């Protein structure tokens, strides 16, 4: 199912395909509603009613490109929707309205020595769908259409997966599995929109759910590559679920943070934290909604986030799933 989820196209504000897939998966297992912004809010019954209201959230949107104009030669000018490094998309494939295209830029042979040694700028890149000119391109593309990374879902190495949009379809996938299964306490599962452009869906959905406790299921940057050393690796693949104490949007609830580690240790679930205060996720919006929400984030360590080739380790996804359920069993008593 994760493969299907990752290959769906759903940029911020254009999450419909993802939402419809998820509704089709969960409709027989919970009550659900879609709010005005497009968040999918699912009320799932557990074995018991918790003392506090619990919400679990993951975002449906992925980083993408939006077409802003068409040049006379038929090439498409775009802006990034969400944080994308130009080098990670240069020379790669995209789809626009289901049609294949490529991210073009002048050939290396025709650059000056100094240009060859500069990182590409987003403004120098464009999309080529093979159109001969503007007229032909406009038959297939309208301004405001989104372009998506054209990735395959690849299993490789020792238990690794590679695809676009693992951020955060992996979180969506875990929530779908929980909704379809048995959970210890009644929980509101929220599939949010527009995380990548500023955690916007989390604002409205948390207001409407009004939880006491929230668990965010996410992906987070693993820089466990030879180009970074020691604490700069942030977190390490195959070392389990990542529970953060702080990122750029949130200082996480200290008691929940400690609870995650004690529960993980008790159950033998691999768990780690982030060694760099960086990044952010829906927690940033959730924890300051209303009169405040006690929030924790459980994240999959993911390499090359926001690129067409995110890499995750299946063992870490399992650890996140196991830890989320184990934590849920405890927070229902708080």
């Amino acid at each position, binding site marked *: 199912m994760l493969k299907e989820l990752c290959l769906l196209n759903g940029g911020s504000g254009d999450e419909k395909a993802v939402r419809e897939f998820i509704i089709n998966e969960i409709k027989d297992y919970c009550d659900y509603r879609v709010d005005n912004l497009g968040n999918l809010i699912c009320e799932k019954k557990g074995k018991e009613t918790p003392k506090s209201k619990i919400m679990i959230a993951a975002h449906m949107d992925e980083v993408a490109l939006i077409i802003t104009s068409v040049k006379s*030669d038929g*090439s498409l000018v775009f802006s990034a929707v969400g*944080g994308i*490094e130009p*080098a*990670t998309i*240069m*020379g*790669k*494939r995209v789809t626009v309205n289901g*049609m*294949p*295209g*490529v*991210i*073009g*830029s*002048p*050939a*290396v*042979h*025709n650059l000056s020595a100094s240009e*060859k*040694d*500069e*990182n*590409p700028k987003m403004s*120098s890149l*464009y999309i*080529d*769908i*093979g159109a*001969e000119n503007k007229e032909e391109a406009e038959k*297939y593309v309208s301004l405001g259409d989104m372009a998506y990374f054209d*990735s*395959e879902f*690849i299993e*490789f*190495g*020792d238990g*690794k997966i*590679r695809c676009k949009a693992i951020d955060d379809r992996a979180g969506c996938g875990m929530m779908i599995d929980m909704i379809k299964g048995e959970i210890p306490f009644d929980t509101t599962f929220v599939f949010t929109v527009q995380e990548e452009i500023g955690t916007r869906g989390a604002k409205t959905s948390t207001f409407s759910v009004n939880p006491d406790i929230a668990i965010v299921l996410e992906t987070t*940057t693993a*820089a*466990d*590559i*030879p*180009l*970074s050393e020691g604490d*700069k690796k942030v977190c390490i693949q195959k070392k389990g679920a990542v529970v953060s104490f702080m990122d750029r949007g949130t200082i996480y609830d200290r008691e929940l943070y400690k609870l995650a580690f004690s529960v993980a240790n008790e159950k033998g679930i691999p768990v780690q934290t982030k060694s760099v205060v*960086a*990044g952010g996720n829906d927690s940033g919006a959730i924890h300051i909604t209303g009169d405040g929400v006690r929030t924790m984030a459980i994240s999959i360590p993911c*390499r*090359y*986030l926001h*690129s*067409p*080739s995110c*890499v995750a*380790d299946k063992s870490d996804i399992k650890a996140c799933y196991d830890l989320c359920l184990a934590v849920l069993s405890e927070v229902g008593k708080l």
Partner: protein
Amino acid sequence: MDITEILEKLCKSGGVSGDETETSEIALSYLKEYDKNAFIKNGSVFGKIGNGGKKILLDAHIDRIGFIVTSITDDGFIKVANCGGIDKRLLPALPVKIYGNKTIDGVFVSVPPHLASEEKPLAVNEMYIDTGYSKEELEKILSLGDTISFDTTFKKLLGNRVSGSALDDRSGVAAILYALELLKNENLNCELQILFSTEEEVGERGATTGAFYLNPDIAIAVDVSFAYASGEKEDKCGKMGKGVMIGISPSLDRELSHTLISIAKEKNIPYQTEVMSGRTGTNADRFSVNREGACASTLSIPLKYMHTPTEIIDTDDIVSVSKLIAEYVKGVK
């Protein structure tokens, strides 16, 4: 004959410079339709059609740019050197195929923005490839000196345009094969020599030895050249879909260039001229100075985004190359 299907087969194979055999075998199987005695020697594919008269060589290079494994780190990442001209700026998060004792997937690492201290792209030999394996597991599959290519995905775009890696110069191979298809019922007045040569991308080496072996009188290098794309200089590029680019250059045979142009005009084959001021950067540079020399020419297919994983060509341009070759060869007395 389906040119796109041939291209797709060729482009989906490895065949990085110095390791061309996989691709040469595919090209050989197609070439055997026209010369059952065609063979592979030192990685290059050789064929011969017709006997007597002038020896005319049709060449396209079979290799593609890529990488060669130089070391494996303790945590299972690969360090590489480049085989041919790589644009280092596009390496981050780039999917690759790794040709060990089996073909495995990998991806170039990308440094997250909050850790990227330098504005400049890292050199090829400073980058790492993520295989997802431990060093121990990886060493069961991979040896130093194994090759790595860009991802080999092949896509059809609008019209007759296709995108993939290694269209440089598998398009040239396809053009020669289609020319042979057009010539298959003709009685030739020449010895037509076919060469799909190795190691063009590292210095036209297969062409050097291949031409020595064949000793042609006339040699046509079929390669790709720059098609105009956004950001390029319009006056320095050909136009995609506007036909074969016929080379004119001090290093090429002027009379041969003019013959090719007049045939294109006469037979209504779409063409454009590509004027160069010295060497051509193609195998023709080797052919003209082979042994006692040969009359050389270039016929090029306009291509966008050269040396990226997403090169684009228009198969109509391949057809115009093939037609021009066929008409030229038919006219040789």
